[in-house]
Structure formats: C-alpha cells, structure tokens
C-alpha cells in the first residue's frame, strides 16, 4: 500500500465524441509532488484526458478523483450526477491549466491576467491579489513586464504569464497541454525552466509534451498513450531507453 493518497486518480475513464471513441479506459495515478509526463501521437486523446480532469469535458464512464474528490460529479449509489455550477467551479479552481496557445486575456495587462481570478472567484481583496500577482510574475521573471498587454509579449513570455495566472489560484495540481509546442525553438527553454522550478518546489504536475529531454530530467513518471489507451508507463529514463512496446518504440524514434 502507498503511504499517501494519490493527487490524481483515473479509473477506467471513457470518452467519446459521437461515434469516435477517444478515451477507451484510462487508468493512472499521480502521487502528490509527482511530475507525470504524457506522451503519444496526435489524436491519441492526451488533450481530451487533461480536459476531462478539470471537467472541461464530461466523461462517459469511469472516475476521475483529484485529491480524493470527484471533479464535476457527485456519486450517489453508483451513478454520477453532474454537480451544481458553483461547486464545479470551486473544484476546478484547485486545478491549474496551461494551454498550448496560452489563452491569456488580451484586454488585460499581464498583472491583471494573474490577479483577475483570485479577485473574481475567491473574492480576494484587490491589494492582496495584486501583491501575489506581482510575486508570481517575479517568479517567472516577468515583473518588469507587469503592465504589458499579451500582444506586446513574446510567446515564451506569454506562456510564463499563463503559468503565473494558473498559480495565482494556488492549485493542488497543474495540467500542461503541450505548453511549448506553439513556441519558437529559442523560446522553449525559458518556459521549461519555469516548469522545472515549479516541479522543484513540489507542485504536482501532469505534462503533455513532446520534449523528451524535459520528460527524462524532470518527470517522475512517463505514460505513453495511443488510441485512447495507456500503452506503457514507467520511470521516464527506462521507458525512453528501453521501450517494451513496439508502438512506443516507433513513436520515440520519430520524436527523438
């Protein structure tokens, strides 16, 4: 038996879009303070899985627990019932998400982007939220650009602001969906550095990425997905060096 309860627990998660079965029974576990990297070819359902975790998509069957609690549902008997919006929002707020295309709010400055949710969702006093926002921007090295609008920032800077924005809600779990895929190669490093810092501070993270180097150095676990299933998982160094499945090997040979 494990010493600690998992931060994220997925049990037989199924998801379909019409006739297309995108997730065909995902089981996985992420311990607190662990960094799990999710790899897989395009269309294998990685993004869909992350979106199910914070209930941006509804699952068709299976269970997703974050810190022991179902995210968008309540279990009565053995049926799932969709929760009230307020409760869904409360549980979502504990899960940070970083998107491939940043999705910063373009009409707000960097500082406002980071301070907005704590004020609007947690009803924090503005001064408190702004102070924390400044601290978080400092942490990702962007304090000097606090008053810049997203359109005035580089892709790497925007993604670092997006990370600070997610952290402002003080989440228990951070989800990253290909955070560096939309970036010019020379900007990838600064974002990965910010994520590495976060991992060292003990944040629990699930990272969809094609950055094998990051998975090997920062990841505690690596999961390879294909066709809506977990094909292989283990310690990143081992899986990358000696994949046991043919599909993993074929994929790695293309990415490496």
């Amino acid at each position, binding site marked *: 038996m494990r010493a600690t309860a998992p931060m994220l627990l997925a049990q037989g998660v199924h998801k379909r879009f019409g006739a297309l079965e995108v997730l065909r029974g995902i089981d996985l576990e992420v311990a607190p303070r662990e960094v799990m990297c999710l790899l897989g070819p395009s269309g294998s359902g990685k993004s869909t899985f992350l979106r199910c975790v914070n209930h941006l998509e509804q699952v068709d069957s299976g269970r997703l627990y974050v810190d022991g609690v179902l995210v968008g549902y309540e279990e009565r008997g053995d049926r799932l019932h969709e929760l009230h*919006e307020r409760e869904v929002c409360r549980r979502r707020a504990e899960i940070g998400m970083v998107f491939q295309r940043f999705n910063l709010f373009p009409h707000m400055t960097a500082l406002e982007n980071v301070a907005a949710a704590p004020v609007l969702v947690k009803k924090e006093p503005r001064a408190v939220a702004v102070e924390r926002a400044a601290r978080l921007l400092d942490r990702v090295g962007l304090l000097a650009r606090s008053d810049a609008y*997203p*359109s005035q920032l580089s892709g790497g800077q925007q993604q670092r602001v997006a990370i600070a924005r997610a952290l402002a809600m003080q989440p228990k779990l951070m989800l990253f969906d290909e955070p560096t895929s939309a970036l010019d190669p020379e900007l990838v490093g600064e974002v990965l550095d910010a994520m590495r810092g976060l991992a060292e501070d003990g944040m629990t993270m699930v990272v969809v990425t094609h950055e094998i180097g990051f998975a090997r150095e920062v990841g505690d676990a690596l999961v390879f997905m294909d066709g809506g299933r977990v094909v292989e998982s283990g310690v990143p160094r081992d899986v990358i060096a000696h994949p046991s499945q043919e599909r993993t090997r074929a994929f790695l040979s293309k990415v490496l």
Partner: protein
Amino acid sequence: MPLRHPWRWVATVVVLVLAAMLVHSLVTDATYGWGVVGQYMLSGPILRGLLLTLELTGAAMAIGIALGVTLAILRLSPNPLLSGASWLYIWFFRGTPVLVQIVFWYNISALYPHVGIGIPFGPVLVHGSANSIVSSLVAAILGLGLNEAAYYAEIVRAGILSVDTGQTEAAQSLGMPRVVIMRKVVLPQAMRVIVPPTGNETISMLKTSSLASAAAVAELFYSAQLIYARNYETIPLLVVASLWYLALTTLLTIGQHYIERYYARGSVPSVPPRTFPELLLRSLGRPGARRREVPS
C-alpha cells in the same frame, strides 16, 4: 501634347459643372428660402423637437442595447426553451416594419387614456392632456426600442461568437462561473466587434426616430411638419431638419471614433480611420487623435 488621363479630366469637368449648378441653385433658387431657414434654425419648436429626437434616440437605444444583450445571451444559452424564445422574438421584430410597430403601440397606448379618463380617440389626442402625449411618446420609444433590440441582439451574438473559445476555457479552468466569464472575459473582447455597428445603429436610430411622427410625437421632423403645415414653407423647413440631422450624425461619428479606439486597447494594430471626419481628425494631428501602442 496629349492629355495623360483624358477620361479623368472629363469626369472632373462634369463633377465641377454639376457642383457649380447645385451651388448656383442653392444660392439663387427662391424655394430654398435661406432667409426662412435662418429664421427657424434656432426657433423654439425646432429646438424642442431636436431635444425630443435626442431623448427618443437615447431611450430607444438604451432599451435596444439592454434587451439586445439579454436576447443574445439567451440565444446562446444551452437551454433550448430560452434560445428558442429569443429566436422567436428576433424573428418577429425583425420581420415586421418598425413603422407598423410604432403605430401598433400607439394604438394600444391610446386605449389607456380612453379607459382611464375618457378622452376620445383620434388626432385630438395630439393636442390633448399630458397623459396622451406621454403615451404616444412611450409608444414611439417602445416601437423603436423593441425593434432595435432584435437587430442589436444579432450584433451582440456575432460579437460573442467572434471571441476565441480558448478564452472561455481558460476562464473556466480558473474556476470562473458562466456569468463572470461573460461579463469579464467574453463581452469586453466582443466589444471590439460590437462597438462599430453600435455607432452605426445609433446614427441610424437618430434618423429612424423621425418615424415617431407617425405616433404624433413632436420630434424634429414632426415639429418641422407642424410648422410648414401652417406657413407652407415646406422646403426651407425640411432643410432645417436635414441640417440638424446632419450636424448630429457628424457629432456621433466623431464620438464613435474615440469609443472604438478605447475598446481596441491591447491589440497591436490601432483602429484605422474609416470615415471622413476621422481622417480629418487625424490629418489635423490633434493630440491623442491616434495613439500608437509602443512595446516598452
């Protein structure tokens, strides 16, 4: 030596001749009666009509915008009953002429004084008690406002749909509820798409409000009509009304430019000047006529 662009010269000459003829007729033709125009331009009934036109426009746009935003949000609701009701409203009010709607409300509202006080039907109401005047004004405001709401709803809906769904998802992932996302994330961005047509709608409403004359509301046009019905100076009074409408629409166009610029903040290319007064403002180089966002 042959001319470089012969047709351009021909066109220029034609335009100049036409312009000269127009000016000549404007200055000399007695029917325009510039003396009469000058006499009525700032007269009491015309200025009161002008004020009423502004009030009508303001009230109708206020109803149109408030109800239009509501209808647009309902239209996009996942609840089929709500979106269906909104669709039905838009279908009905866009599908019938606004003039018919004004007359319809006028006749409904004309019932109230009859029931309450016993004032007879008919044009007598125009000169009647305060009650009947208010009710005809209300009829005009309702007719114009409810009709505007249907058009405005479509403008707002287009604006909302223009905002990237990634914005909603990012806001959701931060735990924001639907209402907050709409107010703080989606609508402020939709504004960039909504504001330019709002200016156009307001300008259009300023002119459409003249239809209130059908409900015997003494706005600018009806005031002019009342005067020329007495003194037969038809053309000069129509010129008076037109000059005021032109002056107001020009002012609104300039105001629109500044509002558009405000909602374009955060986007790199600033709003290009689109209309003549805007170009004029820019060429005059007025401070702040065009702000450039410089990355620091």
